[in-house]
């Protein structure tokens, strides 16, 4: 009989070890899944985790790590602030879309004008788009006590509809031969989020992600607001007595995560994606939830987790083209990772006791 005893303090060692154990378990069970799908498990796992970093074409894939990792880290960092305080923004995908639309719209409004201030304007508008979209669940929660989980999620579907309306209507490329989608911002020099160092994958979104990580770290460890976030998450009643204003905290957490998600969307649409299309969003807003948990809601952890998740995206693409592994397999793989993490987390807060249960 296995029994669980609550630890007086969560184990720090386990908190660090569980993400690694979860990754290992996912590799093993993911390998089994690939074996079921008729692939060589070792080969598939190597393709996903080894090829992008050290394989023959690693020079091409390594920059992709930054390109795919940046939006994940940027979004996850914002989400983690809220998650720490028990504020669940799960509509980052919608905020990401709105940021992209606002950012792209700002640029396209001035097309074909070339000016230095267009890109900064896009950054502001992109962030604003995400911020405003996240303020809807925020304000509703503060004013009416509405559940932010459901509202933020509903707004993802609204944003997706808005996206298709925009790419078929207002933002459609007038020279696009009737195809849905906006003008390609990569061909509009003032609006293009180009690589800062050619061939490195380093674009402004990567820089923003780095800044966000540093800011979040300082906020959480050195600032009063970060302390309020942590207390609210761990002991809501104590936080109230300690004078934390819950409404302001909710608006701050949702607002920040919306802002960062919006920025991520804007950097993506101005750079790697290039244009607003019906389905330019690939689910970073949802994967970022996994990144946030995998990174233990800690800035440094999120940075590492974002890199790992980017790796599975790239490796998944390679596995898709080389081994014919279905795209959905990698999604299952990512979901598995979250499951193992949540399941193994029990070891952080509880001690396993083997042997017969004592008589109470």
């Amino acid at each position, binding site marked *: 009989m296995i029994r*669980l005893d609550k630890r007086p303090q969560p184990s720090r060692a386990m908190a660090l070890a569980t993400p690694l154990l979860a990754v290992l378990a996912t590799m093993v069970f993911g390998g089994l899944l690939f074996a079921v799908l008729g692939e060589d498990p070792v080969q598939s796992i190597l393709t996903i985790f080894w090829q992008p970093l050290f394989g023959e074409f690693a020079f091409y894939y390594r920059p992709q790590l930054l390109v795919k990792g940046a939006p994940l880290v940027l979004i996850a960092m914002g989400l983690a602030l809220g998650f720490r305080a028990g504020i669940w923004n799960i509509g980052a995908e919608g905020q990401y879309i709105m940021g992209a639309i606002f950012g792209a719209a700002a640029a396209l409004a001035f097309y074909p004008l070339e000016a230095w201030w267009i890109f900064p304007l896009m950054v502001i508008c992109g962030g604003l788009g995400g911020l405003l979209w996240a303020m809807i669940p925020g304000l509703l929660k503060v004013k009416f006590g509405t559940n932010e989980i*459901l509202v933020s999620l509903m707004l993802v*579907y609204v944003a997706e509809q808005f996206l298709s309306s925009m790419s078929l209507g207002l933002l459609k490329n007038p020279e696009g031969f009737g195809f849905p989608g906006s003008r390609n911002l990569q061909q509009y020099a003032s609006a293009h989020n180009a690589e800062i160092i050619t061939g490195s994958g380093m674009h402004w979104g990567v820089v923003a992600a780095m800044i966000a990580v540093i800011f979040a770290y300082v906020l959480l460890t050195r600032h009063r607001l970060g302390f309020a976030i942590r207390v609210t998450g761990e002991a809501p009643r104590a936080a109230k007595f300690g004078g934390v204003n819950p409404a302001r905290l909710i608006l701050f957490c949702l607002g920040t995560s919306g802002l960062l998600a919006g920025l991520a969307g804007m950097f993506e649409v101005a750079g790697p994606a290039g244009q607003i299309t019906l389905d330019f969003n690939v689910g970073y807003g949802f994967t970022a939830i996994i990144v946030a948990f995998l990174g233990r809601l800690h800035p440094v952890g999120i940075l590492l987790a974002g890199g790992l998740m980017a790796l599975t995206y790239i490796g998944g693409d390679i596995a898709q083209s080389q081994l014919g592994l279905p795209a959905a397999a990698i*999604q299952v793989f990512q*979901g*598995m990772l979250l499951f193992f993490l949540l399941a193994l987390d029990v070891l952080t807060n509880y001690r396993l006791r083997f042997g017969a249960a004592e008589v109470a």
Partner: protein
Amino acid sequence: MDLSVINPILLLAALMSAATPILLAATGELVVERAGVLNLGVEGMMIVGAIAGFIVAVNTGSPAMGFIGAAAGGAILSLLFVFLTQVALANQVASGLGLTLFGLGLSALMGQSYVGVKPPRMGDLDLGPLSDIPVLGPILFSHDAMVYIGLLMVACVWATLKYTRAGLVLRAVGENHDAAHALGYKVKRIRALAILFGGACAGMGGAYISLIRVPQWTEGMTAGVGWIALALVVFASWKPWRVLLGAYLFGGITQLQLNLQGAGVAIPVEYLAMSPYIVTIIVLVTLSADKSRAPGSLGRIFHASH
């Protein structure tokens, strides 16, 4: 624009069918939440049910078997949630989100070779002369069996919760798990059963979309219905009959916006398609003030320390 193409009788008849997936999923989730567990994985269980039911129905040629397969599929996925929240004592919000993300991926993987396949059709139930009654006949008495099973499910859940010992125990576990544990009830076992029931209901709701509403398999086809079902449970203040009312409200809006799209109203299609989600938000806002009905232990982790 030609609104006269919208036939009110057909609209009401379609409403009952449009409401069924939400109704099934929300009824299941209601039981789960009354047992004190918040399972945000409804969307994931629905989509897995949708594809599991689709696969079974296509391979056996029987829609009825499909629904059984869907219930099994949803329940099996919910087993993962049972393990995470009841055995490993993980956070319910995170586990539910994980279930949804995992379910969306898993269903896409399972459904790869079923894109474009036509499922066997489920005929309408033959209710004899009842369906020939003017107006009421087509609205109430000319549907497939699942519409009635959904209604029956609401009635059963209502009666069980209100009048039976099992229902009382379930509510006790949901209101105060420590007290229920002290009385000797197996909190975890009861919650596990409730979660499995919720999974089976969500699975059937999903299969109703893939087998009857659409009927076809496409990735992510549940498109947020699972989340609307979750909102509906809050809207219904955890009461079965109000779930029914809410499901018809949402079914009506879904159907009406589809009909308006068909009628060529001046509003662009995308904005009409937003309406069910926006209405959900509005309903949540107007009804959020009263949270007193929420089960006392909702979302809290139970760990018997002695």
